[in-house]
């Protein structure tokens, strides 16, 4: 199986499927994931705005995918910490993308930066940094 199709499955954990997360592109050490807008992920029922928690899940998943891609293997990892800055709110009805770059790997730790946006990556809605503990165990993707 090609790495691309394996990576696509990273969004296919039970909760990834529930949010309908999709891999849209990859570069050398980075990936982009999409969170399609849906009624289920609304946090503000009046303005129909997406809940920050769904954005956090998109970002966390994108980090995992970027690490798989950068380390060129499906070795599992555990999130140590994740910090998200919410710069602005995504307009209602818009899909949200997360561009995650695993910019540094040591034997034990992976460092990732993320930009989340709707139309234009230069106008992000959120930015994030995260560190992960790497593991020798294989991530369970069928």
């Amino acid at each position, binding site marked *: 199986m090609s790495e691309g199709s394996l990576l696509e499955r990273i969004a296919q954990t039970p909760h990834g499927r529930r949010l309908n997360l999709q891999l849209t592109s990859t570069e050398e050490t980075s990936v982009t994931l999409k969170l399609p807008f849906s009624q289920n*992920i609304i946090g503000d029922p009046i303005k129909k705005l997406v*809940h920050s928690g769904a954005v956090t899940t998109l970002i966390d998943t994108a980090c995992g995918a970027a690490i798989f891609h950068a380390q060129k293997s499906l070795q599992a990892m555990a999130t140590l910490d994740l910090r998200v800055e919410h710069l602005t709110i995504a307009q209602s009805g818009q899909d949200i993308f997360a561009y995650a770059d695993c910019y540094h790997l040591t034997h034990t730790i992976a460092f990732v930066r993320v930009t989340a946006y709707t139309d234009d990556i230069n106008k992000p809605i959120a930015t994030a940094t995260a560190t992960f503990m790497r593991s020798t165990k294989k991530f369970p993707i069928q």
Partner: protein
Amino acid sequence: MSFVNKLNKIKQERDFEALVELIPYAKFIGVETSLVGDNIVSGLRFMECNIGNPALPALHGGVIAGFMENAALLHLIWQVELINIPKIVDFSIDYLRPGLAATTYSSCDIIRLGKRVALCNITAWQTDRSKPIAQARGHFLLSENKPL
């Protein structure tokens, strides 16, 4: 009725279940609330669809974070006299243990309540409160975002 007025009515009637009903995402991930004294306390019942690592199995880290963000939001809504809906500014989470297939509980402390912004600490645990699965902190904007 404006959203803030609706929330104030819910608070007045101490109808903590109605609060979750208002937030589709909270229902979606399985948030349940209860009242402990004057505090609204959030729990997250285990659901297969919240799994992020099927091998352990463990909850998705994003769900744990989303649950804790929402717990802080509900806590602020319940405790603070609302002018606006608190808006998350930043959120930082440390993962301490995997979230296993069990109910997750949370507690939230307001560390600093200013006129415009609040800082909250949130802890999440499952079977043993002294063994938290994650701790987090976040700033929430309480005022309107308008020119100073």
